[in-house]
């Protein structure tokens, strides 16, 4: 299931050169949008390039990272779980301790600061699990901006606590009924809103997908995870880890952790949602089972039928329930730098329960996928193996849907 990566090949590879100026990672990425959005995307790109060089922007970002989100997040040695994993040492990068309970807010702060620089007054966002919507609503409350969140009706039902929180924060929730009423459809609606309100609106995309410059921008804002983790592991263990593991829907938490390690001698593994099994047609494993195509402004791996119609994804975890993946992941898979595997709903639930009981950490269902990969592959590890797993979200939001799966009424 897991092939060893030829790490030497990538030691001197210049990952910083990607994407190119047209937003391409190899063939992937790009800007496949209607003409109405094109001029706006160009101006977002221009403003982002400027912001990146601005000390004021960096200082502001650092300030909110530290004092509002609570960064750096700890790198925690999960000692009891480590014993379960053939005594390999497993560390959790605890982004679930961030304000609003997931990694999503790292990116929201960045994008909303950019929107403010551009003088935009209205923010739109899509959300699946509700974590990105919640983070966006939170940051909009902080900066006094109008916030409209598009969310599929299916997701509204399974993520009721986050919906309520977003409303409390003053966001307007627009239920999306088209398609399967999940994340993909919410993204379509958010794009339609943006096309209709380009002058005053900024679209805060929650993952490393969408048209250029979003995949790059979101990656950059989320890279704080990997930058911190690297520093922390070198301090704690005096060496780099052997493995990095993270779950992947669109892939923002994963790329945030992976990106600063791409040149290093580290095996990197992304875990997609295998749903009911990747041969059942009910899963969200776009890399394992999809093929390259075009959706939501970028060229990437997509679940689709032979006519090029996008197929529905399925996952117990709303945050992974997306039929595509960020274009940089598609490229990292193609060049062989990152291995992509998957874990089923059932496996994720088992890992969820184990983590809760053994570490006293209730993980979100998303990172439970990453953990289940480690549990499944424990024979490959030994007492010398050092692993960092991104604990990218906490499970509070999932307790209702999990109780249903466990047959418990709360």
């Amino acid at each position, binding site marked *: 299931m897991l092939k060893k990566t030829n790490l030497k090949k990538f030691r001197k590879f210049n990952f910083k050169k990607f994407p190119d100026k047209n937003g391409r990672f190899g063939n992937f990425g790009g800007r496949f949008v209607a003409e109405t959005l094109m*001029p706006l995307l160009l101006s977002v790109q221009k403003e982002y390039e400027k912001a990146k060089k601005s000390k004021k922007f960096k200082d502001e970002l650092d300030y909110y990272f530290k004092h509002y989100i609570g960064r750096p997040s700890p790198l925690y040695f999960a000692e009891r779980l480590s014993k379960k994993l053939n005594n390999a040492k497993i560390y959790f990068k605890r982004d679930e301790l961030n304000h609003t309970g997931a990694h999503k807010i790292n990116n929201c702060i960045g994008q909303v600061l950019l929107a403010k620089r551009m003088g935009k007054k209205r923010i739109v966002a899509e959300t699946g699990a509700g974590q990105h919507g919640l983070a966006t609503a939170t940051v909009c409350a902080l900066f006094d901006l109008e916030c409209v969140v598009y969310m599929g009706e299916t997701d509204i039902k399974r993520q009721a606590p986050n919906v309520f929180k977003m409303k409390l924060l003053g966001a307007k929730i627009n239920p999306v009924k088209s398609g399967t009423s999940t994340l993909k459809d919410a993204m379509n609606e958010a794009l339609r809103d943006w096309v209709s309100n380009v002058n005053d609106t900024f679209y805060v995309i929650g993952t490393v997908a969408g048209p250029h410059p979003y995949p790059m921008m979101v990656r950059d804002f989320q890279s704080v995870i990997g930058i911190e983790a690297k520093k922390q592991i070198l301090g704690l263990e005096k060496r780099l880890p052997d493995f990095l593991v993270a779950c992947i829907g669109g892939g923002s938490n994963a790329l945030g952790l992976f990106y600063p390690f791409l040149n290093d001698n580290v095996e990197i593994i992304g875990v997609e949602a295998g749903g009911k099994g990747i041969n059942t047609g009910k899963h969200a494993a776009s890399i394992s089972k999809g093929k390259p195509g075009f959706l939501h402004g970028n060229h990437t791996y997509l679940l689709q039928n032979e006519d090029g119609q996008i197929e529905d994804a399925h996952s117990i975890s709303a945050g992974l329930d997306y039929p595509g993946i960020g274009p940089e992941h598609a490229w990292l898979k193609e060049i062989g730098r990152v291995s992509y595997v998957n874990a089923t709903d059932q496996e994720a639930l088992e890992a969820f329960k184990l983590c809760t009981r053994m570490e006293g950490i209730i993980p979100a269902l998303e990172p439970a996928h990453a953990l289940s990969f480690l549990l499944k592959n424990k024979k490959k590890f030994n007492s010398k193996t050092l692993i960092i797993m991104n604990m990218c979200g906490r499970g509070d939001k999932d307790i209702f849907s999990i109780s249903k799966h466990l047959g418990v009424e709360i």
Partner: protein
Amino acid sequence: MYNRIEEKFRVLRSEKKKAMTCFVTSGDPNFSTSKKIINSLPDFGADIIEIGLPFSDPMADGPTIQKSSQRAIKSGINIEKTLEIVDSFRNKNDHTPIILMGYFNPIFQFGLDSFFKRCKKVGVDGLIIVDLPPEEDDLIIKYTSKYNVFNIRLITPTTDTKRLKKISRLSKGFLYYVSVMGITGTKKPSISKVKKSVLAIKKVTNLPILIGFGINSSKQTREINKFADGYVIGSAIINLIEDTKFKKYSSKVILSKIKLFLSNLK
């Protein structure tokens, strides 16, 4: 090389007439009715026919065309069958230009070379690929020139002069001016703003300019014809295929409704 779009505008201009372009989704509500609708459009006054290739995620379309696409996909339509429709249309009509409008993914999955080759063979004259802006359309340039299928480009209220110049330099056939900032069939365009933009575009290019998005009344089309080269009617026709109450009509009823509607527009 001869292309029906250029020929059509040459004729229309010499007769001082404007182009009524009719958009319908291929396979909506089903293959046979769709074929009948498309075959009848020239008799109902259509100068150019635009056939939508349905996509599961039409991000530039409003609810009307979204639903229409879903109906069509459900009825089993795909590119192959759409080309069949065009092929049979061409058996009877060799002069009305046909333009396929769609999103890039289904075309890409069909295979670019075979798609363009088939377009040429069955008599497709132009293409509008909504999510392929000039920044990305080098992916198809090779094929559009090889098979003489025009890549019709969109100009929108957000297109600035620099882009406008570039886009019109690259374009053939006509320019499609998107009258509103938004998606199809929702907002009502301000005709005076559209006029201002069209006059500005005319300073840059001699290409004919058609106005689309939110056009559904003779009041609008009469005004538009004073300064542009014609208009595109889309959602307004599709609303006749299945009304908002999801009432299903027979193909005969649909055809007579479309005929009546279009005769009032011209």
